[in-house]
């Protein structure tokens, strides 16, 4: 250790992941080994040394940001569970990927919460869905499912109540699809639930109730305030059905007077086991499912998934990258999506502040216009399903044009390029400036946002916060610059950062990011004109593409932050048609790790605003 410290540490902190892996192999002989499976990267770490290695990766190698931690079940291929970690440097660069394996029967790994607090929710998720026990985790319990849930659904041998077949497409559909039935006939409500063997439903108490019962009894905790007033600890249950939670999300808040002692987020009400569905699907089938994650920015979700699978396809012999026009259209869609999302997000933040629906309505007015274009290009306003592996679904239409086919139908017809240029050059900048004047100077907004919900920069990085939440804290981290994808390297734009890490800075970052998006879009428009008529997809689209074996972690800067897809193709040397593992690193989910620390000591009335400033979408949080 000592002579390593004497070495120039700076070179270690700027080296490539390969250098880092070599350093780890040298420093921990026997405990670290290279991952030699075809198409896999990184190192495999002995669980006994995991914490020590992680600490080295963070401190000595400078990988200060844990992007993703997830598990894979290799049933039938060594029968072990594997935790996969992707660590990045905030200064940019590619991932250092390290793994730890444990057997399925007695799955146990040391927790990395002590190294990166951002591992908290992700380890709880792995415990919930895979049944891996993390030694040393401060709060290891189910996060997406409830305590009475039987088994760990992401394990390969777990079967859902309406289980039909291991992989899609199902054989019963063709050529003898006479057995058509409504799924609910086979999956009758009330009979679709299994409980663990030793589970007694009557004895189940909810975490909030537990505290409430305690309150009603004799155990009331008393606190003396600074001025000598004595108060009780009060437990408030907010949600799941509460208009401020932007969906079905719940917070259990323990209060001391009006100040918050602890806040515990409870989620999973919208959980549908997206990842299990994804592993039954073929690669292409997952594309429309990604729309349903963060349903406000489906174009961005599509893009992330397309990039992840394209990385895998690039491992094979016959791969042609997306055409230039496809990349231009992708960026056009991604940046419009960013504007759509931020309009929505700011509108709802104002809603949470009590400016009920007027700012929201103005923002939505503009959003609808952009959605008109999405609808004309992709066929749907929100569930766009627009990206394909190697390109996009179809070229943008020449005219945004409708046909009257139903009674009372009213027709519109615009030239697409003219519409886009009008929106990007005139309407949206004018609106954003007006919106800025409308809100930013407003005293009520400033009073309630400045200095509230502060998240310091080091905490933000440590908690794996991403997107405007991280940038609001003054960390200039944006995947578009840190690890550029698509045609972002040739585009001119700035990363917007805040200073204080409070709600106001997050709001200001979003406002300014819309302007930066418009700046990008203004550079995209001439490129769209130049590439007119060029192919929008490389190669031919197969309805069930075969993907070579390997792993990939594709990530994009979605409006809500870094969206990552960990996709594993495994089990067949010639390639697979269904992913072995499909994991979504959801910014809305992991950003919530910071909610508890951010709200500590704040007033109860600010919780709603702080939650609003994180900008979550429950479709993505719960998956």
């Amino acid at each position, binding site marked *: 250790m000592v002579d390593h410290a004497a070495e120039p540490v700076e070179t270690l902190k700027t080296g490539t992941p390969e250098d880092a892996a070599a350093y780890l192999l040298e420093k921990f002989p026997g405990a670290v080994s290279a991952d030699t499976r075809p198409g896999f990267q990184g190192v495999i770490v002995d669980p006994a040394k995991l914490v020590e290695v992680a600490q080295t990766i963070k401190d000595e190698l400078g990988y200060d940001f844990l992007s993703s931690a997830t598990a894979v079940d290799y049933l039938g291929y060594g029968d072990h569970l594997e935790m996969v970690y992707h660590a990045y440097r905030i200064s940019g660069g590619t991932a250092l990927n390290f793994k730890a394996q444990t057997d399925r029967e007695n799955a146990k790994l040391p927790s990395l919460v002590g190294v990166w607090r951002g591992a908290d929710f992700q380890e709880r998720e792995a415990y919930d869905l895979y049944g891996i026990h993390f030694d040393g985790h401060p709060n290891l319990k189910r996060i997406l499912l409830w305590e009475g849930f039987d088994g760990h659904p992401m394990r390969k041998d777990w079967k859902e109540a309406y289980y039909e077949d291991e992989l899609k497409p199902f054989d*019963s559909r*063709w050529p003898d699809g006479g057995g058509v039935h409504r799924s609910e006939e086979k999956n009758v409500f009330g009979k679709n639930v299994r409980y663990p063997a030793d589970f007694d439903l009557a004895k189940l108490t909810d975490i909030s109730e537990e505290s409430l019962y305690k309150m009603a009894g004799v155990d009331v905790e008393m606190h003396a305030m600074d001025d000598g007033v004595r108060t009780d600890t009060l437990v408030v249950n907010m949600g799941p059905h509460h208009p401020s939670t932007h969906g079905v999300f719940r917070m259990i808040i323990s209060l001391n007077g009006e100040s918050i002692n602890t806040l515990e987020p409870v989620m999973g009400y919208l959980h549908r086991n997206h990842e299990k569905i994804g592993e039954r699907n073929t690669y292409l089938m997952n594309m429309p499912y990604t729309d349903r994650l963060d349903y406000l920015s489906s174009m961005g979700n599509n893009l992330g998934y397309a990039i992840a699978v394209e990385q895998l396809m690039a491992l094979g012999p016959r791969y042609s990258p997306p055409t230039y026009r496809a990349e231009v259209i992708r960026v056009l869609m991604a940046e419009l999506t960013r504007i759509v999302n931020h309009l929505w997000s700011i509108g709802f933040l104002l809603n949470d502040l009590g400016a009920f629906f007027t700012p929201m309505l103005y923002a939505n007015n503009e959003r609808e216009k952009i959605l008109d274009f999405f*609808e004309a290009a992709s066929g749907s306003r929100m569930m766009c399903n627009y990206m394909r592996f190697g390109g996009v679904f179809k070229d943008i239409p020449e005219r945004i044009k409708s046909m009257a086919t139903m009674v*009372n139908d009213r027709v519109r017809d615009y030239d697409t390029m003219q519409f886009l240029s009008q929106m990007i050059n005139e309407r949206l900048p004018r609106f954003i400036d007006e919106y800025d004047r409308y809100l930013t100077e407003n005293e009520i907004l400033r009073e309630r946002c400045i200095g509230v919900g502060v998240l310091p920069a080091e905490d933000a990085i440590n908690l794996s916060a991403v997107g405007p939440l991280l940038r609001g804290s003054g960390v200039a981290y944006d995947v578009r610059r840190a690890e550029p994808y698509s045609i972002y390297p040739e585009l001119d734009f700035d990363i917007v950062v805040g200073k204080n890490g409070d709600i106001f800075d997050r709001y200001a970052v979003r406002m300014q990011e819309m302007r930066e998006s418009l700046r990008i879009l203004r550079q995209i428009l001439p490129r769209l004109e130049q590439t007119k008529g060029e192919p929008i997809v490389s190669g031919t689209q197969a309805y069930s593409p075969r993907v070579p074996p390997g792993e990939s972690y594709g990530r994009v800067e979605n409006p809500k932050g870094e969206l990552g897809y960990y996709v594993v193709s495994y089990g067949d040397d010639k390639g697979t048609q269904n992913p072995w593992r499909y994991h979504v690193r959801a910014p809305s989910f992991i950003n919530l790790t910071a909610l508890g620390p951010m709200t500590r000591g704040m007033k109860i009335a600010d919780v709603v605003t702080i939650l609003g400033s994180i900008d979550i979408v429950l479709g993505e949080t719960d998956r």
Partner: protein
Amino acid sequence: MYGMGILKGLGITIKHFFATYTDEIRYGLRKYTKAVDNFQIRQGPETKGIFTSMYPDEKIAVPERFRFVPFLVVNDDDHPDAPGADWCTACGICAKVCPPQCIWIVRASDPNTGRPVPRPDEFYIDIDICMNCGFCMEFCPFDAIKMDHDYELASYDRTTVHIHDHERLIKPFSYWKSIAPTTATEEAEARGGWEHIDVIKERKKREAAAARAAAAAQPAAAPAPQASTAAETPAAADVAAPVAEAVADAPAPVVDEAEEERKKAERLAKREAALARKKAKQEGGDN
């Protein structure tokens, strides 16, 4: 001054409040007529005020690519050869690519031989499961399944009517042309005519054979069939009406009418037979 921000904001609210009315005054009642222009302005990027539309008295017509639950294309009722014939060949690609697996197909088979026939016997789509992704339409090699524009599917009983059967699913080809003229034209260009792709392929094969035969029989008269093929091959730019006519009646201009009639019937019979043979062979070979 403290409070100026709020006042400024209120000023903008007032501006927005009146914008809708000034729009109203500017366009007057014209705004609510059916004329295209007015609606165009009200819903376009130039509008100032709030632009709600008064559903169901006025509905925003959906763009061509809009996708709602699928329907099956069949020939029009006034089709000369096979009115109402399915375009679907029961190849099963839509059922295989469907992400939520909501398509159920029973492939037809010949009652005598038991061999599969390129036609669906039954076709079901569970519209409760359908996620409107449009993959079936995208990957159908026969342009036989299309996404609909009719989004008004409310019903009183979900348990009985939400599994659409073949009868409920079929819509004539002219309907598809009416809801998505641009896409339909592009597809026709790719196929080489307005007909089903198999019909076009057969026709081309037959023509090639006829041309060869004619060339072998009397090399001097070669220009005639050539002229006819030239007339039938659509120019990439305009495939619309002229092509349809060219496909419907394709007489070589030199031959007299009675002869042409006879030849046409002969060709038709041959074509049908060949089509059935080929399909049966192909499908049989698949299994």
